[in-house]
């Protein structure tokens, strides 16, 4: 049942939430929009196209301490980091919410990552449906939609003088402000997006592993980590210990398959040495291995990698190229 909240209702409601829990919301930073914990409501940017980084950083931060080691009189004790505070993640678009749902699959799969699970359970997702699409968006081709409520606890859809409020889960209902009137007006139609033909891509991927196409695309790739770090569904990480703050800490940080040495073994052997092999791993993990393991494509069509790749390696173009190569192969 859709409710209605005016702009002021929303501000008041978020203000009350801010009193008792962390509120992570899109904030304008140096001309960009980033998800950050806020200290006052005024910091929230309500009108933004897309954030630079995805909200996955709240559940899998760029850097975090997994546990620290306390040594008292020789006895060693490992103190895990705990996620002790309830939180609200406000303003994420449906594609990012699906990104989080996709990362849930490996991280909650037994043996689940307890810290990640704790953060997920303590955080309520308040989504913001998209009123217009950007040229790089292609969520509808990736199993999501501008108004897809399925991965958020509450979905807001902006209308003239306020927001349609749709409580999707019990967790969301529990957080709703009291006394919101029912919304009887028209639900705005979501924006149309151009579609990317993805159905055949998985079978094409199986065939084209050793195709020279990957070396061609790999030629211009710089092998930086931009595409992986802005991506809502990339979750690879690295772990190392630190002793510089007076105690031993095991730190987990973002890592990307494009980094040098990502698959380098201690003996010095590296299964991926050429540029094409390394770039190929990004697309195979997203479009073949993850789907085979978790029955869903690890791309939500948010378009961030398309927007930020310095040399325009565009996953939509790669997907359509694969099908052209397949047709050429089967046709000829």
């Amino acid at each position, binding site marked *: 049942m859709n409710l209605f909240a005016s702009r002021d209702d929303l501000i008041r409601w978020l203000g009350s939430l801010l009193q008792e829990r962390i509120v992570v919301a899109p904030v304008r930073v140096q001309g960009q929009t980033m998800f950050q914990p806020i200290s006052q409501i005024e910091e929230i940017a309500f009108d933004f196209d897309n954030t630079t980084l995805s909200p996955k950083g709240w559940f899998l931060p760029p850097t975090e301490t*997994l546990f620290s080691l306390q040594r008292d009189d020789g006895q060693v004790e*490992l103190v895990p980091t705990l996620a002790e505070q309830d939180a609200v993640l406000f303003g994420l678009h449906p594609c990012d919410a699906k990104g989080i749902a996709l990362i849930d699959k490996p991280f909650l799969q037994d043996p689940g990552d307890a810290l990640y699970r704790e953060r997920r359970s303590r955080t309520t997702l308040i989504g913001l449906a998209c009123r217009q699409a950007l040229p790089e968006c292609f969520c509808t081709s990736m199993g999501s939609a501008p108004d897809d409520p399925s991965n958020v606890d509450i979905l807001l859809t902006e209308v003239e003088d306020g927001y349609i409020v749709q409580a999707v889960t019990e967790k969301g209902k529990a957080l709703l402000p009291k006394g919101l009137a029912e919304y009887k007006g028209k639900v705005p139609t979501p924006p149309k997006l151009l579609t990317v033909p993805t159905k055949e891509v998985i079978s094409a991927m199986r065939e084209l592993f050793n195709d020279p196409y990957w070396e061609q695309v790999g030629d211009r790739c710089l092998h930086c980590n931009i595409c992986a770090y802005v991506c809502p569904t990339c979750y690879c990480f*690295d772990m190392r210990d630190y002793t510089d703050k007076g105690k031993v800490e095991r730190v987990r940080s973002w890592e990307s398959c494009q980094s040098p040495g990502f698959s380098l073994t201690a003996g010095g052997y590296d299964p991926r040495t050429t540029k094409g092999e390394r770039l190929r791993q990004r697309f195979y993990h997203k479009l073949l291995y993850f789907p085979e393991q978790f029955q869903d494509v690890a791309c939500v069509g948010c378009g961030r990698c398309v927007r930020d790749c310095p040399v325009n390696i565009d996953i939509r173009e790669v997907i359509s190229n694969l099908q052209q190569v397949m047709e050429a192969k089967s046709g000829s």
Partner: protein
Amino acid sequence: MGPESPFIPYLATLKTATQLTPDIKLLSVELEDPDVRASFDYKPGQFALLSAFGEGEAPFGIVSLPRQKDGLEFAVRRIGTVTRALQELEPGETLGVRGPFGNYFPLEDYMGKNIIIIGGGIGMAPLRPVINRILERRDDYGDLVIINGARTPQDLVFQPEFPTWMEAPRTRLELTVDKGDEQWKGRVALVPDVVKELALSPDNAIAIICGPPIMIRFTLTGLRNLGFKDNQIVTTLEAKMKCGLGKCARCNIGENYVCQDGPVFTLEQISQFLEQP
């Protein structure tokens, strides 16, 4: 992150550290918590992630046999920051153990078969528990041929156990080095050449190989030439690993996560990998 977080290692104490070769030490480790010690059950081929607190974690094959009285054993070759820190631990110091991870050598399926064990350098480590398990139940298995190669004589791993291996019934230990020295009386040859020279029969036989990729590649051709089929050749893959939990995707080779689907694979399985390791 409650205690059951898979990223928190079990605490363990180093009991003994014996120098096997100039750069390899055998660490014998005991899990501190008795309940964990009791429940830590594993099979030959599985591995654990050892934590040298202050440096980090790295995967090591468990080279002891389960229920062995003196705890878990790992052969650690000094090759980087974590291995250096592990080798510098003094007995009584604390380290971390996470695991057991991965699959294992299906030794029950090999019962009654002739077993050929081919190890190169530190590659011998994950094969040691296989040998000792076969010697423990010698009659369940056919002939056992062990080919252990290394760069130089002192690089041969597990030398203290060579006598037991040699004297075991229906068992042959063939040692070889790339480069001998004055005292060395034995064979000086590359492992693949030894395989060719021994002309081992593939009938009712399983070959288990572990070692540097270059050695594996040439040994495989040798075995194939002798008539070994791909499902008769087993290896344990060395891949970059970080979490051991199928999450960090470091060991994602082709559609497999070596830390969960492996590290033990038959050559037949590997040849179907989309991405060759």
